[in-house]
């Protein structure tokens, strides 16, 4: 019977370990998305949520360390009133904070996702290249799509714009004397409604 209990204990231990590794692995590869862990419905990060997260984790870790450090055998300890007060302060502050925020409709509206392109204007010589950068502040490093939506030139998947070798001759055969323009659009893959534009002047 003792052997069976021991075997069951090891099996449970291994299963819990595998579950833990699975969860950590899914978080690390992004399958479990924590990107809005401390975010409000409107997309802003919240200090109240962050404080709640920190204190909850500290109490959870402390509880575990206290239980396993019991001298004879693990027992559930009495939680001091000061610890409960700390959690109470944090929780109450969070609730009041949300009450203030949600009293204003603008505090709830999702502000949408921004994509910022740099530079927004560029002067490029024919045959030359210009590197553009895109930033998605809500989710840095998230994939974006680059396009030339108007004008000449090409842009690759990394935002490198290549101007045509020479100005196309306008109708009538005269050489081009005025500057040409191209418009670059970058769009977030994850948020297709979020995009930004840049204008290239070809000289």
């Amino acid at each position: 019977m003792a052997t069976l209990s021991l075997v069951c204990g090891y099996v449970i231990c291994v299963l819990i370990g595998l579950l833990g590794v699975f969860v950590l692995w899914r978080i690390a590869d992004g399958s479990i998305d924590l990107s809005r862990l401390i975010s409000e419905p409107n997309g802003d990060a919240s200090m109240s949520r962050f404080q709640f997260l920190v204190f909850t984790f500290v109490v959870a870790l402390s509880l575990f360390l206290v239980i396993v450090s019991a001298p004879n055998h693990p027992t559930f300890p009495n939680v001091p009133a000061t610890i409960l007060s700390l959690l109470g302060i944090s929780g109450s502050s969070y609730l009041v904070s949300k009450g203030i925020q949600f009293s204003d409709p603008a505090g709830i509206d999702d502000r949408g996702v921004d994509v910022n392109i740099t530079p927004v204007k560029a002067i490029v010589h024919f045959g030359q290249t210009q590197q553009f950068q895109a930033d998605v502040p809500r989710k840095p490093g998230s994939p974006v799509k680059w396009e030339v939506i108007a004008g000449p030139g090409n842009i690759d998947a990394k935002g490198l714009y290549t101007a045509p070798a020479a100005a196309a001759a306008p109708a009538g055969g005269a050489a081009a004397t005025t500057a040409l323009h191209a418009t670059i659009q970058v769009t977030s893959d994850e948020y297709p409604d979020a995009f930004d534009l840049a204008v290239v002047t070809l000289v």
Partner: protein
Amino acid sequence: MFDLQKLMEWEILTFLLALAGLVVVQLLTGAINTNGFFCGRVSGRRRGEDQYFSPERVQLLVFTLGAASHYVSQVLTNLHPGTFPPMPEGWLAVVGGSNAIYLGGKTYARWFANGSSK
């Protein structure tokens, strides 16, 4: 043969620390959204003009991390194994005061900063 209790202890401790590490790394790299973390919003102003740098959030962050690290250090150096070390009441007052300042700033931005109280 490993001691089953020790194995379980290390397993859970490793999980908790790895989880905390992942969250910290994702916070620092921006994978967890921190947009507007130190910014408050003034009600009634146009979008784009309503954000302001918020010192009350900075002080709340400092005192939150201070209280958390102080308590974890107390747990790690606990002289009475098996019991929670008490949180000094001074720290409770500090955390409570810090939260009051934060809420005060938020209240001001919501109802008074724009000169309206709708």
